[in-house]
């Protein structure tokens, strides 16, 4: 790998241990994937912030690197962590909360912003073609496919190193030749709601391996639909992007896959593991809700009230909550909880005795049985809300 003079000095340790470690991570990963150079990035997004998913092991490293005095050199954002200050914090043990605040403090010391969201693309407008180093697989697919920015699927530590150095090795989808589609997917049924888009992602992720698809039949899909599709595509697969139709590709050179109504139905069915009509939690907001989704939820709720003993969480970022205050106030009046900084996947739902989760998110339905030890029901938003009002 070719390094500039300055990169070499960092690599040799002239700027201290922590900078050297970060540079080493980038260079060795680059070598592993045959990159020939590092390229500048406009932002980094780090996953592995929740104490629930991290455990104690990383605290030592984060402490050491934060105390070494290194600082982020580009805009650097954080994925959701395990608690929310206003609501969940009061329900969890102080020991858990203390550890979580400690982890956050180390990130802040390095200069990370407390974005605490899996949707960093809502925080500010991203340039098409900008190079990023993002972890959080759902955001990676969204950035590559919907926004047209370029990022590999980073791991937590490599995104951290990229945030400090401000660069990433030039491999994978940072190179135009690796962004070429290999498969033509024809969706033969019209998808009716966000949940069916999610189910399509789960289905395709399992069969695509690392082959980038052009997906035909997504007419009328909103950005929120595509967000669901990408999030679930990344949950079951390795592919980091998809194209929609209307792309100038030589269609006859591509492998072809058809998706029938039955495939979507079966994927939905497999993501439902319980038939209960009284789930312990109804959860909307994986990935975190957009402003438009918050408005849609407020409109759908109207003046109705969530039934007593029904727990309804709407998860979003602090940023969107503030922007959507007109709607969030209305939603909270219904008895639903607007929860920021976390979500049902990275929060300790099991410690809150939540054993059944109803959600409109195929990604959550895919992960909850293993990560949260919960049974799941996958339903579109409207049905989730109806259940909350029926009790």
């Amino acid at each position, binding site marked *: 790998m070719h390094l500039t003079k300055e990169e070499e000095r960092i690599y040799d340790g002239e700027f201290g241990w922590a900078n050297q*470690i970060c540079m080493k*991570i980038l260079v060795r990963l680059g070598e592993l994937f045959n990159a020939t150079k590092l390229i500048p990035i406009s932002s980094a997004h780090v996953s*592995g912030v929740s104490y629930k998913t991290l*455990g*104690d*092991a990383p605290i*030592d*490293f984060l402490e050491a690197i934060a105390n070494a005095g290194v600082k982020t050199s580009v805009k650097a954002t954080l994925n959701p962590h395990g608690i929310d200050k206003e609501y969940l914090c009061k329900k969890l043990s102080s020991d858990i909360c203390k550890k979580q605040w400690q982890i956050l403090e180390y990130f802040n010391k390095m200069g990370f912003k407390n974005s605490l969201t899996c949707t960093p693309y809502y925080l500010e407008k991203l340039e098409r073609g900008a190079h990023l180093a993002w972890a959080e697989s759902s955001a990676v697919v969204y950035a590559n496919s919907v926004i047209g920015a370029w990022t590999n699927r980073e*791991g937590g*530590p490599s995104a951290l190193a990229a945030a400090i150095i401000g660069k990433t090795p030039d491999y994978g989808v940072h190179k135009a030749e690796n962004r070429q589609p290999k498969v033509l997917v024809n969706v033969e049924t019209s998808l009716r709601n966000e949940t069916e888009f999610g189910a399509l992602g789960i289905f395709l992720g399992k069969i695509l391996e690392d082959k980038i698809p052009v997906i035909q039949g997504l007419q009328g899909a909103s950005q929120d639909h595509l967000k669901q599709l990408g999030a679930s595509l990344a949950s079951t697969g390795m592919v980091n992007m998809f194209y929609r139709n209307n792309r100038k590709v030589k269609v006859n050179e591509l492998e072809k896959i058809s998706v029938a109504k039955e495939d979507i139905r079966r994927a939905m069915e497999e993501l439902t593991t319980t038939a209960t009509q009284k789930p312990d939690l109804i959860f909307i907001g994986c990935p975190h809700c957009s402003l438009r989704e918050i408005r849609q939820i407020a409109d759908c709720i109207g003046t109705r009230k969530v039934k007593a003993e029904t727990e309804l969480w709407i998860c979003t970022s602090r940023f969107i909550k503030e922007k959507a205050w007109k709607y969030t106030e209305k939603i909270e009046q219904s008895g639903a909880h607007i929860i920021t900084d976390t979500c049902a996947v990275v929060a300790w739902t099991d410690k809150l005795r939540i054993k059944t989760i109803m959600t409109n998110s195929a990604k959550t339905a895919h992960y909850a049985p293993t990560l949260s030890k919960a049974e799941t029901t996958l339903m579109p938003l409207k049905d989730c809300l109806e259940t909350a009002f029926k009790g």
Partner: protein
Amino acid sequence: MQPITLKGRRIVEGQCKAEALVSKKPISFLGGVDPADGKIIEKGHELRGECVKDKVLCFPHGHGSTVGSYVLYSLAKKNLAPKAIINQTADPVVVVGAIIANIPMIDQIDIKQIETGDLVEVNACKGIVKILKRRES
């Protein structure tokens, strides 16, 4: 015996001489190795209960969460880390872990040549693993 020399690719430099611990299956450090005592805890794993401390740990490749990299750092801080890591194919999780924990590491080695209990010498700078002595049966 005549030492057997295997040649691979340097990932993290360093040298050591120690006993090999060989796994035919991949290892996930997050959830698969206990950071408190260095023992392999993954359910159904062939090396379950074995401790990685001071071993030349040989396995095909890593798998699982990228948080696994931090587990290697944590082990090293408690002096529970392996002396070296030998992989068939290096993957990002293990590579990053070996870098931050400063554990000598080589990949592109045919690990089937090495058996648990063999005395091996690792020269990661040159990408060389030497089997000095076979396990006494």
